[in-house]
């Protein structure tokens, strides 16, 4: 092989002394043993390679990691679980109002039922009221919601006692 070919081979190799292509390296070595100019060329190539392999790393700022973590903490909000609705979720005033309303409805229902069948038009009101109370019971503390549930059940029982609606009576007639 000519000197030009050998130098081309040296230039083509990303790593001059890469042992993965032994045959090619052996050819280069054989040539450089007998050619001083190419030996110098190879030396230079190896020198450059060594220089590049020994390129020192640049030290980052000592607080780089800290700064990255701070930035990440700003990005990622605290992943704490959603808190349970606290007892104070519904304002105390509203809680008192609910309690009074429930008691009032329950008393009215009981009084009416003790005398006779409830008027037919009460049926829808009772059902709606009991539904509202059921919904609200989810918002208040446990002991109050238990009371509201009990009242809602009572109202639903009363609805069974309610008489037929006027339109139903008309249909029967």
């Amino acid at each position, binding site marked *: 092989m000519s000197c030009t070919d050998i130098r081309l081979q040296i*230039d*083509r190799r*990303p*790593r001059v002394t*890469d*042992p*993965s292509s032994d045959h090619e390296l052996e050819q280069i070595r054989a040539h450089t043993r007998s050619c001083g100019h190419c030996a110098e060329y190879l030396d*230079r*190539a190896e*020198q*450059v*390679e060594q*220089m*590049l*392999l*020994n*390129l*020192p*790393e*640049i*030290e*980052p*700022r000592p607080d*780089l*990691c800290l*700064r*990255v*973590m701070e*930035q*990440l*903490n700003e*990005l*990622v909000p605290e*992943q704490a679980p959603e808190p349970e609705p606290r007892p104070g979720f519904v304002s105390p005033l509203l809680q008192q109002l609910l309690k009074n309303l429930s008691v009032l409805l329950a008393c009215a229902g009981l009084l009416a039922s003790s005398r006779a069948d409830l008027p037919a038009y009460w049926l829808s009101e009772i059902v709606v009221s009991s539904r509202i109370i059921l919904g609200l019971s989810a918002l208040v503390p446990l002991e109050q919601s238990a009371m509201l549930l009990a009242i809602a059940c009572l109202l639903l029982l009363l609805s069974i006692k309610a008489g037929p609606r006027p339109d139903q009576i008309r249909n029967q007639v």
Partner: protein
Amino acid sequence: MTPPDQPAETSDPDVPLEAITRRIKSGDTEAYAAVVRTFEKRVTSFCTALLKDRTAAEEVTQETFVRAYRYLGSYDTDRPFYPWLARIAFRLVQTYRSRRRSGELPLTAELDKPAGTVNALEDLIRNEQSRALWQEVCDLPAGERAAVVLFYQQELSVRQVAEALGVTSGTIKTFLFRARRHLRQRLTDANRGEKT
């Protein structure tokens, strides 16, 4: 030594990335600190070589780690981590450069001027010989500089360097060839200067 065209590694042996990724995905942000500490020198070196500006390199390095954290879900744990990280860094460097060109960012501490390069490198590298070497690398064109740092200093394979820079393996081989030729020429000139 690893064959130059083959991937050098499948994952970084120093960092149990799979376990760390799992911990991070489950909300343990602190686990990411290990990743930052492992790769901070390499990313800083890469960004400094490309930007030749210490402040800019620090800014881009920090952003690289933040961006990598945000996109960690898309990282394939079967592949080596650093080439993926280097690709993010390279893209951010390109964005930074285009912003600087468009005038969005000031040209302060720009190291493209040779005098400025030496001064800034003095702060970063204390050893005179190492500094001279860095100076030589910094004088190379940008593509060659990036390829040289990733291939020689950070020991990525040609294929991994190509992936990181978004070009073909052939282009990287050309970059490396040109870089070596430049450096060899300078070395020859320096030797001639010493003899005379």
